[in-house]
């Protein structure tokens, strides 16, 4: 049997940004009916490559060729998204490019034909309906995009590409915003589309889903092709090693010894009750020596819980108790003094002052302590010493304590924050999206530190959108949906499907809502 025809071929694509080689002579072929996963750490060059393919960037060297309807491989003019679209390349960006105030139908037609001609509108509807029937991309075409869920918006984006007769579909991190169930639904659609001949390139850094959906996997590392393998021959370890370029030490979680409750949320409400992000009568406990994972689709009240635990907000009603004592008038400084360690969700924006030095950023939470200042004067030597030992102990890669924090990579910023908050042996730890955007090596390091803090007896709350991360860390699960927190029970008794149902707001079967 001959292989299916090649749809798309990238030939020795090289792209340089100044001294940085983002893509170094990368070649790839995509065949009809194939799902190719493009896997790599942040900064490996995945997005750059796809932006070249789609015409957003101009490559320094190399050719992009797409098969025409006649079967010839025509090379695409560089730097022309219009040409890429015309040649049948469709791209679904990580951040959607939809007009929120138009209906799904109009968004799909937008850019291909005038919106105001009635006859065409009906024709378009029939055609889209048939695409939907073929692909299984069920969505209400007449609702405003603003009212659709994230998963539905994504379907609109895919329909948009298919409506333009895309024969190659590129998806950039499509599952980052989906629940496990929605992601599974997407995979079903992709398999079906591929079976009908579509070629799919699927960009991701999550190993599990890549193995689940793709036929072939290409791994990029540092701008180069690090390896290419079929899904059948791939296993997680091998791919992870390829991505990082060295063996990754796996973090293992040993059961901890759980102590007494340190922090308690008692019927806490915060925010306008009409909004999805407000907390409604939230009650839970954090106990010493235990990691609690808070799962949920983003925008369901996680931010409010994080704000309470950071000291940025106080409950509208209800009580926070520390060691059984109600906490009144919390503030970031009071919480730090009470032994809280707080890792912000947006570490670049809320975690560090970019133009201040590494040493200053490590000192920033307790600069008024006697260790770091006397009578209002800074003890620069103490700051320097602390920074040097933090850099060594937490392996913060930077030119030195005086380097500005903005020069650090995301992983190193997170290590800096870990060094700042964990060195004081905190009793309560809030880790909000602790490894979002970090590479596998940095992820393992962050996880190891959080587990070590738990073993030392700290109570930890991990908020994450990455279920793999939560299963790697958590002893117990909470799930948040529309501002209500449900106790899901010990991690060992749970699976992804159960958590996914709770994330989608389906009530728990074994345990009634404790209200």
């Amino acid at each position, binding site marked *: 049997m001959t292989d299916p025809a090649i749809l798309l071929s990238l030939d020795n694509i090289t792209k*340089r940004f*100044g001294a940085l080689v983002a893509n170094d002579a990368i070649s790839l072929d995509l065949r009809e009916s194939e799902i190719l996963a493009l896997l790599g750490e942040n900064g490996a060059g995945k997005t750059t490559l796809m932006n070249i393919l789609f015409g957003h960037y*101009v490559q*320094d060297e190399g050719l992009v060729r797409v098969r025409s309807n006649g079967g010839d491989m025509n090379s695409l003019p560089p730097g022309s998204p219009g040409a890429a679209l015309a040649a049948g390349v469709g791209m679904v960006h990580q951040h959607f490019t939809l007009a929120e105030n138009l209906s799904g139908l109009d968004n799909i037609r937008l850019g291909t034909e005038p919106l105001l001609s009635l006859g065409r509108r009906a024709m378009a509807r029939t055609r889209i309906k048939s695409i939907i029937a073929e692909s299984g991309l069920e969505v209400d075409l007449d609702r405003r995009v603003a009212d659709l869920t994230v998963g539905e918006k994504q379907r609109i984006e895919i329909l948009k590409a298919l409506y333009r007769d895309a024969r190659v579909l590129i998806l950039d991190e499509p599952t980052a915003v989906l629940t496990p169930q929605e992601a599974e639904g997407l995979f079903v659609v992709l398999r079906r589309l591929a079976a009908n001949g579509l070629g799919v390139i699927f960009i991701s850094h999550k190993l599990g889903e890549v193995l689940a959906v793709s036929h072939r996997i290409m791994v990029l590392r540092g701008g180069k092709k690090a390896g290419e393998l079929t899904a059948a021959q791939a296993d997680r370890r091998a791919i992870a090693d390829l991505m990082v370029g060295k063996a990754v030490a796996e973090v293992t979680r040993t059961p901890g010894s759980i102590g007494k409750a340190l922090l308690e949320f008692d019927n806490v409400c915060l925010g306008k009750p009409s909004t999805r992000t407000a907390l409604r009568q939230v009650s839970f406990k954090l106990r010493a020596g235990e990691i609690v994972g808070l799962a949920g689709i983003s925008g369901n009240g996680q931010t409010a819980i994080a704000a309470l635990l*950071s*000291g*940025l907000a106080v409950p509208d009603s209800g009580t926070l108790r520390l060691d059984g004592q109600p906490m009144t008038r919390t*503030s*970031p*400084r009071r*919480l*730090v003094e009470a032994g809280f360690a*707080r890792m*912000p969700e947006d570490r670049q*924006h*809320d*975690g*560090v*002052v*970019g*133009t*201040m030095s590494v040493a*200053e950023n490590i000192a*920033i*939470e307790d*600069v*008024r302590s006697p260790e770091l*200042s006397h009578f*209002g*004067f*800074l003890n*620069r030597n103490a700051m320097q010493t602390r920074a040097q030992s933090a850099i060594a102990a937490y392996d913060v890669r930077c030119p030195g304590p005086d380097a*500005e924090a903005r*020069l650090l990579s995301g992983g190193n910023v997170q290590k800096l924050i870990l060094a700042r908050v964990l060195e004081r042996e905190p009793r309560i730890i809030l880790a909000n999206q602790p490894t979002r955007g970090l590479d596998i090596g940095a992820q393992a390091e962050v996880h190891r530190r959080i587990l070590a803090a738990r073993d030392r007896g700290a109570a930890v709350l991990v908020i994450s959108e990455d279920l793999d991360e939560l299963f790697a860390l958590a002893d117990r699960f909470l799930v948040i949906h529309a501002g209500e927190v449900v106790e899901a029970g010990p991690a060992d008794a749970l699976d992804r499907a159960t958590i996914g149902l709770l994330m989608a707001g389906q009530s728990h079967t074994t345990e009634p809502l404790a209200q």
Partner: protein
Amino acid sequence: MSLRLDPREHAPLFLRLLVSLVAGLAALLLVAIPVMAAGANPFEAYLLMAQGAFGSMFALSETLNRATPLILTGLAAAVAFRARLWNIGAEGQLYMGALAAVMVGSGFLQLPAPLAIPAIMLAGFLAGGLMMVIPAMLKQRFGADEVVITLLLNFVVILFIQMLIEGPLKDPLAMGWPQSVPLVAEARFDKLIPRLRMHWGLIVGLVAALILWLMVKRTVLGFEIKAVGENKAAARFAGIPVDATMLKVALISGGLAGLAGVSEVAGVKGYLSADLSPGFGYSGIVVAMLAGLSPIGSVLAAIFIAAVFVGADSMSRATGISNYLADLVVALSLLCVLVGSFFLRFRLRWQSRQEA
């Protein structure tokens, strides 16, 4: 070939000095065009300016006398701008400081000089500071824009001062001139050198610059101001009291401008009038920008700006060219320094079309 911009990781000190220096020189170079248009030789004109500003002990004293309020208003702008608090109201704060000095120091308190001078300085500092604390509080409470409020307050203050010196504060012995009752002798700043106009206000300005420099480099307050100015969200998250820090900055900034007013009243005029300041508050912004918001640099920039004004007066007398060209130099050096600050953030690089 095409030009491209690479962000700089770090702007070294010499480069920052160079940018300020080149900006000043570029302004002088640009002003040479209207000087030539007025029919004078720019080299001669600038030589006369330099002589007028530094050519004699008298000239130097005049320049430093002129620089004194500019140092203080320059510091006022620098400390506020460092915290991203846009204080455009130094002119009004200066007048409020001067008013407070006159209220306290015109004889209603009987104090010996060692107490009277600190008293008028404290009163002036607080009055000027209050004029900035109020807009800062309005900003925090209602999100009111401090640029608009401080700018407009300048006019409010000037009208208020005019009302006072035409009314309750009017000096009955001034033969009808709209000026306030004078400061008592105990509340006056001494001259530094007999028969020359420069006075102890200059020392006040220099000490203020040193204290601010120390504050920026060495104190917790300076640390917190930097954090709040550079990234408010991260500062708040880290537990720095953002609002309180901003109010401290406002007090210091307005206070320094108030001290400029005290210094002009106690060191130069002896009374308050509506022409006390020919825009020292606004020129302070230029001083701070030219200094790259550095306290020590503000002293040098203030002397430069003062020299331009004093030198231009003297040159104007000799050549007949309008001394407005001093304003032109000041305005252009602000524009040049803004252009120059671009080069502190980016590096220009030529590259061939292939690389692009």
